């Protein structure tokens, strides 16, 4: 293939229909409280890891709902499972189980 000194950029747009949402469905079934998130971000605000790395549990949650699984495995390894996020969540989302379910889902799907 030729090079002309520039590249074709990959589209950043989430292509919802092209994404595989089996992992999403699996996780939502294990922990249905995930559906209650209203995106307030108090989990991320209180997250110790989030203060020192780019770990953002609110965003991880949202990306999973869209079927965006890139970098997921690396990201969830940053969580220390302290559970402060869960303490502040106004909707009672079981975020610790979200992380654990992602582990299970990724193992099962071989991602």
């Amino acid at each position: 293939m030729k090079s002309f000194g520039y590249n074709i950029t990959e589209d950043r747009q989430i292509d919802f229909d092209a994404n595989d949402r089996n992992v999403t469905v699996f996780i939502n079934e294990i922990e249905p409280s995930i559906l209650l998130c209203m995106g307030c971000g108090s989990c991320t605000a209180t997250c110790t890891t989030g203060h020192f790395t780019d770990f953002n549990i609110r965003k991880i949650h949202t990306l999973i709902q869209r079927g965006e699984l890139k970098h997921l495995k690396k990201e969830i390894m940053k969580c220390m499972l302290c559970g402060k996020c869960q303490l502040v969540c106004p909707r009672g989302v079981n975020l610790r189980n979200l992380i654990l379910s992602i582990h299970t889902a990724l193992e099962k799907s071989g991602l």
Partner: protein
Amino acid sequence: MKIEGKQNIWKEYQKEIAEDHFFYVRSCVRQNFFPGSEKTFLRILQYELKKDLFENPSHTTCSGIGYHTDIIPFETSMTMVARQFALMTEAGYENLVTSCITSFGLYSEVLETWHHFPELEEKTRQFLRKATGREFKKPANVSHASDIIFKFRKEIAEKSKYSLVNKDTGKPLRVVEHIGCHYSKMFPSKGIGGAEYPYVLVGMIEDWGGEVIDYPERRHCCGFGFRQYLVQANRGFSISCSKKKFDSMEPYKPDMILTNCPGCPMFLDRWQYAISEMEGKTYGENNQGIPVLTYEELAGLVLGYNPWDLGLQVHQVPAEPLLDKMGIPYDPEMKFRGADGQDLGKPEAPTTLKFYAKEV
């Protein structure tokens, strides 16, 4: 798709287009990009439609490219536009027709600016007086050349020798239309059909027998975007924009793309070649591309002009598959010969994109 819904919107975006006596201003770049197009416009207007059209060889760039790449200040652009108006006034014309979409956008922008800020018009008059001693009247009508072809599309259809119909199947050819951003995205009311469902090219396609494809990325930019292209390192943005459109239109199997801007046909045509070289991907059948035509070229084909007189040989994506579908005869041997029959040599064939009907 409910056509009545679109027709209702089209009714809201009508514009006045002059009938005759045009002062024509050319584009800086089209004579390099698609050299037969402007000549074809003159031929259609003067010889088919018997219209009066005047050109002044001392007209210059409108400065639109410089303006949109941030190297020419607006005051300078306004003064250059004022000079073109002065040339028109001196020649006794008042209906301005621009070949270029960006010129059309800039003329419209300058007139709109003067409408809201009359002191800037007065200042521009002073600049022009000091620099050239010229005076001007504002045009009575500013139209883009595609507006004129749109206005006379039915007359062209009456004189037509070929139509946008597949001669083998009898079905209308499927056409993607793409208008330039500066045609109606700046001032929706100045473009036929407005910005969301522009009608200027659709009207031509329908009246010449074709069928318009409305595909999801129809409104996406062609990728020209001036600075995106002019700086080599930025060209990735440009080609990615075009690719997004091709990927979106591909499932609709378009027979051609019709455009009314200098930049859009350039990039929609040339980037098909670049994508094929970079990724091995082509968008037509059998590694062909999707032919991209200007509206003048298409009007010329419909009227039965020789494809090589229209300049179709400079297209990177060959137009021959379209000519075959429309049943237009052409001599492949004459494709790369000059007006006097002199052999100009043949371009190297691309790696993937099918350029010659037979291997050379």
